[in-house]
Structure formats: structure tokens, C-alpha cells
């Protein structure tokens, strides 16, 4: 179904101010999300924070239903937390790894996850092993299958990395890990809200995601899915009186749903806003969103790739919204600044965010342009013509065949 892009733009206050190609960073929220957050904050100021929470408990609880519907889960399998990294950490640090255990990850692994993997490995004696990519740049599923054995206690997979348009074949990985009886922890930070996700189809046991990117929710929101049968086997790394209950005999009892991964105090306005963002995405239609972002990103890749001096770096069999490129003679920060001058927002991806992928390719930094469905073709034109203007500027010397200032 074709989207009513003009209508969706009219519903997005930020579209009046910027051409926003930083949706892989943090998207522009639609008006209903903005209204829901502000409304809840107003209510807190009027009657008190606890009282607003109680009065609007149905809206808070609705967020769990909305998230469950979004990914095909049960509401008891959902925890709402501050961000995707915290969601990922709460699950990962709950595994009781021991010396000799193996943890497998992919080349797309994200810096925060990698650091946690290394910390846990150094504490527990478990080893982290990297599954290679195949020739197309996605995780090599056959290599993964060969690496699985009884010592592998977890497979960590980034669905869509921060530094690339790659969409890893999560469902294929899920089939392999499920057959082997190894839990799959899927980092869906960049994929949720961008493309359809169903935890059963994906075969993942744990999924972490954020609100602020392609879901267009408030910053400081994220969520965790943990498969029902796994929840009670995972003791969170820290507990409070929300995650567990103090018993009369002095012991504690951890709750039996996924909210054991939450903590008591939270941003209720953000939580309500996240639920509204999910409703909004479902109303727009995730399939339609996926079609639109692929279309815009593909056009951007083709047009940038045609510019002399511009190199597009995305690899993979399936590519999503994130478009990464470099411009000869210009650092990523300079290109970002130049685009900002024309009110075009992009971001910079550094090798330190994704060394397993970027270091072997000799890439220190990338410009990351990530369209969402509300971006217009005119905005794509503006981005491309600005990059073209930068790329064609020449040095005064050392460039045979080029006229200075051409």
C-alpha cells in the first residue's frame, strides 16, 4: 500500500524545520507521540506523578500490549526499560556463563554489546567467538551452524547494524540456533519499526530494541522481549522491589514475568509515548514502512554512488534504511556540518562503534544517512545535491584533470 507521505509529513512537526536523515540515530516523533508525552507530563504537574500514573494506568499498561502485538509476543514477555542497550544488558548479564562456555557473535556486533561480551568473558572464563560474514557481507549462516556445539551458551546477533544498511538474515540464524537448542539474543535496535518483526518467525529467544529510532518514540525508551520459557531461567544482574518481592522470612522472590528486568522508577510519560508510537507505526503499516524506506534508501545509494568522489559502503544481500558513504577530501564531520548548513541532518559512524566490520575494511568513519517513510523525494534531492556540491570542489593542486574550483 502506498503511504500518504504528505499527510504523514503534516503529522510530523519536525518536517517543517529539517530534512531528517538521522532516523538511525533518533527519529522525528509524530504529533500524537509528542502530545501523549507532554500531556502526561502536564498531568503529573497537575495532580502528582504517582497520581498521574494511577489515573492513567490503562495507558501505561497499553504499551505492553502494543509492543507485544508489534513483535508477536505475549505481554508478559515484555519489559519496558530505558533504552536498547540496557535491555540487551539486562538479558545478557543474566546468563550464568562459566569457564569453557562459548558465546558466538557476528561481525556486525555493536560496540556496547562487544564491550559487555568482553567483560563477561574476562569475569567468567567464557570465550567470545566471531562468526564470519559470507561473500555478500551478511553473517555466514552455514559457518554459524558449523560452530555450534554443546559448549555454545548464547548467540548474539545484531539484526541491522549501526554502521551499515545490512539486514542480517535473522530468521535463518534463528532456525539454526533453535535446532541446536542455543538461545538467540537479537539486537533489533535498528530494525524495530523499520521492518516486520515476529519473534516466532525470527526464532529469537530474546530481543532488545529502542523507542527513539524507527519506532519514532520518545528518547530514553526501550524494551526487552524474553521468551516465556526462558524468563525464569534468567536472574537479572540487579533487582529492586519492582523486579522482586521481599519475603517475611527475609528472602526475596523474583517476579515470574519479563518485568523482572525492569526497575521501579521510570519515565512514565516516555512509556506512554512509546505505546502511542507503536500504535502509530502499526496504523501506518510496518510492511508499507519497510517498502518505503527501502525505496528511499535504494534511490539514495544509487544517486550518491553516481557522484564522482563519493563511495557508498553498504554491503549485504538485503539492505535497509541506513545509507553509509564517504566523500573524497572531506571528513565525515565536515560533510555533516555542510549538510547541517542546508538543514539536512545526518550522523557520523565511527569505526569504534563497529570494529569487527569497519577495521578490516580500512574504514575509520562514515557518513550515515538514514531515511524514514516520511522523508520526501525533494529531501533526497537536497541531500544529494549538497553532497554533489562538496564532492566536486577541488584542491588547488595535485588533481590532474580537474580544474581548481570546478
Amino acid at each position, binding site marked *: 500500500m502506498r503511504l500518504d507521505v504528505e499527510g504523514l509529513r503534516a503529522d510530523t512537526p519536525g*518536517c*517543517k*524545520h529539517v*530534512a531528517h536523515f538521522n532516523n538511525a540515530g533518533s527519529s522525528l516523533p509524530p504529533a500524537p507521540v509528542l502530545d501523549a508525552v507532554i500531556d502526561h507530563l502536564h498531568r503529573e504537574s497537575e495532580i502528582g506523578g504517582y497520581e498521574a500514573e494511577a489515573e492513567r494506568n490503562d495507558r501505561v499498561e497499553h504499551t505492553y500490549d502494543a509492543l507485544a502485538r508489534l513483535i508477536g509476543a505475549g505481554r508478559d514477555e515484555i519489559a519496558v526499560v530505558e533504552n536498547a542497550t540496557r535491555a540487551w544488558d539486562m538479558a545478557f548479564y543474566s546468563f550464568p556463563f562459566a569457564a569453557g562456555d562459548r558465546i558466538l557473535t557476528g561481525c556486525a556486533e555493536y560496540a556496547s554489546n562487544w564491550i559487555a561480551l568482553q567483560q563477561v568473558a574476562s569475569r567468567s572464563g567464557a570465550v567470545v567467538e566471531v562468526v564470519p560474514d559470507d561473500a555478500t557481507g551478511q553473517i555466514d549462516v552455514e559457518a554459524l551452524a558449523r560452530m555450534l556445539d554443546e559448549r555454545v551458551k548464547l548467540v548474539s546477533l545484531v539484526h541491522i547494524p549501526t554502521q551499515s544498511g545490512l539486514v542480517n538474515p535473522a530468521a535463518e540464524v534463528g532456525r539454526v540456533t533453535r535446532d541446536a537448542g542455543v538461545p538467540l539474543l537479537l539486537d533489533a535496535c535498528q530494525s524495530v519499526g523499520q521492518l516486520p518483526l515476529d519473534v516466532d518467525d525470527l526464532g529469537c529467544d530474546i530481543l532488545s530494541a529502542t523507542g527513539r529510532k524507527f519506532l519514532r518514540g520518545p528518547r530514553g525508551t526501550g524494551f526487552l522481549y524474553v521468551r516465556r520459557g526462558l524468563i525464569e531461567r534468567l536472574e537479572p544482574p540487579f533487582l529492586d522491589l519492582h523486579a522482586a518481592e521481599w519475603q517475611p522470612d527475609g528472602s526475596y522472590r523474583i517476579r515470574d514475568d519479563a518485568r523482572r528486568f525492569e526497575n521501579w522508577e521510570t519515565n512514565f510519560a516516555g512509556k506512554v509515548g512509546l505505546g502511542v508510537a507503536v500504535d502509530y507505526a502499526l496504523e501506518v503499516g510496518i510492511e508499507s514502512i519497510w517498502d518505503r524506506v527501502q525505496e528511499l534508501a535504494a534511490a539514495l545509494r544509487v544517486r550518491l554512488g553516481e557522484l564522482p568522489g563519493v563511495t557508498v559502503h553498504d554491503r549485504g544481500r538485503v539492505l535497509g534504511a541506513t545509507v553509509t558513504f564517504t566523500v573524497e*577530501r*572531506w*571528513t565525515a*564531520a*565536515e*560533510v555533516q*556540518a*555542510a*549538510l*547541517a*548548513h*542546508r*538543514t539536512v541532518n545526518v550522523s557520523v559512524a565511527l569505526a569504534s562503534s563497529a570494529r569487527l566490520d569497519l577495521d578490516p575494511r580500512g574504514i575509520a568513519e562514515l557518513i550515515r544517512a538514514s531515511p524514514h517513510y516520511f522523508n520526501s523525494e*525533494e*529531501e533526497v534531492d*537536497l541531500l544529494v545535491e*549538497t553532497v554533489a*556540491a*562538496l564532492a*566536486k*570542489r*577541488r*584542491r*588547488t*593542486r595535485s588533481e590532474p584533470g580537474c580544474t*581548481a*574550483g570546478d
Partner: protein
Amino acid sequence: MVNLDQNGGMTLETVAADLRAAIESAPDLDAAAFARRARNAIAQAVVAAAFAAEESLVPPEREPPLDELAGRVGPELAAELAIVYDGGAGWTSHAIDALEPLHALAAR
């Protein structure tokens, strides 16, 4: 219809003033901070010039602070930045010449 290029109406004169202010900030900043400010100003000015009818900037009201620049970034880069500051024909090419050494300075 929303005007997408909201800084498009900004005159090259305004952009030139920002660029020159960045270059004049050399005595006030350490080399790395100066380099970061200068290269961002250059990037914005070059893209503004690319879409302007005339690349040359309005002439500056004063001379660039050449001695302070040389003291901060060395004589060679200072000379390039002085040409950029002047804003005469071909200044954008000199600006691009300056980016690499500025980047190296910014990374120190």
C-alpha cells in the same frame, strides 16, 4: 509548501562572516579546538558558495591575523587560511587544501 533549504536565504556575506570569525578565533583557542571550528566553518561556507551565484566572498574589513594563525597552525596552513579569509576567486579550493592539515590538527 515547506521551504526545505531554510538556510538557502542566508547571504554569502553572513556565511563569510562566520568563516572569518572562525579564522580570527585562532588566538583564543587551542590548536585542536581551532581546527575543529575552522573546518566546520569551511564546510558550511564551501557548500554555501556552491549554491551562490558568485563564489567570491565580499572583501574582508580587515587583514587576517596572519601572525597569530602562523603561531597556532604553522606558516603554510596560515597562508592557506589567509587566502580563504580573503575570499577571492578560487578560495574554496584553498579551503579544501586546508582541510587535511586542519583535520590532522583536530585529531591531536
